[in-house]
């Protein structure tokens, strides 16, 4: 079993990229590898509550639900959250100290920035 970490770093607006990163993360579990998703920099907005349907974008609700069901840890980088004044995160996403983020990345066999 490998440890795979997917890092979401960019704004979720005007793009399907972040939703696709999450769909890909679901797919990566299919060979019994342990998949962790990290949200950092502007990517933390993906893990914050938003009404993306107001700008005609489908929220990646299903991706989050399935990742939770598959027990994939989802971590949001605390300094990135604080810098952007984000007050709350989606269910099952936890705020993590930079040390934990670094440890998760360095302990991974595969790291995929998306």
């Amino acid at each position: 079993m490998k440890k795979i970490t997917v890092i979401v770093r960019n704004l979720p607006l005007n793009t399907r990229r972040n939703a696709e990163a999450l769909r890909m993360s679901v797919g990566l579990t299919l060979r019994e590898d342990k998949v962790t998703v990290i949200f950092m920099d502007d990517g933390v907005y993906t893990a914050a509550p938003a009404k993306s349907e107001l700008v005609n974008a489908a929220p990646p609700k299903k991706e989050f639900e399935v990742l939770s069901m598959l027990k994939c840890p989802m971590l949001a980088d605390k300094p990135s959250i604080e810098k952007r004044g984000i007050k709350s995160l989606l269910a099952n996403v936890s705020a993590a100290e930079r040390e934990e983020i670094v440890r998760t990345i360095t302990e991974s066999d595969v790291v995929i920035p998306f």
Partner: protein
Amino acid sequence: MAVELDLKGEVCPYTFVKTKLKLEELESGEELAVTFDHAPAVENVPRSLKNEGHKILGIEQQGDHLWKVRIRKA
């Protein structure tokens, strides 16, 4: 009697994830019949299941963009 699973409206990789989770509930040798309406899934899900050791008993087109895949759990 096959266990039925309706995956209409689902796309990759949820088609495979949900098929796999359903198979985990079954005993070895039991049959699962999955309905898909996502064309790529009809090709890819059986191929991936074979790779996991399961047996594909048949793929039947039931209408425009509607297929039933019958699987025997390994």
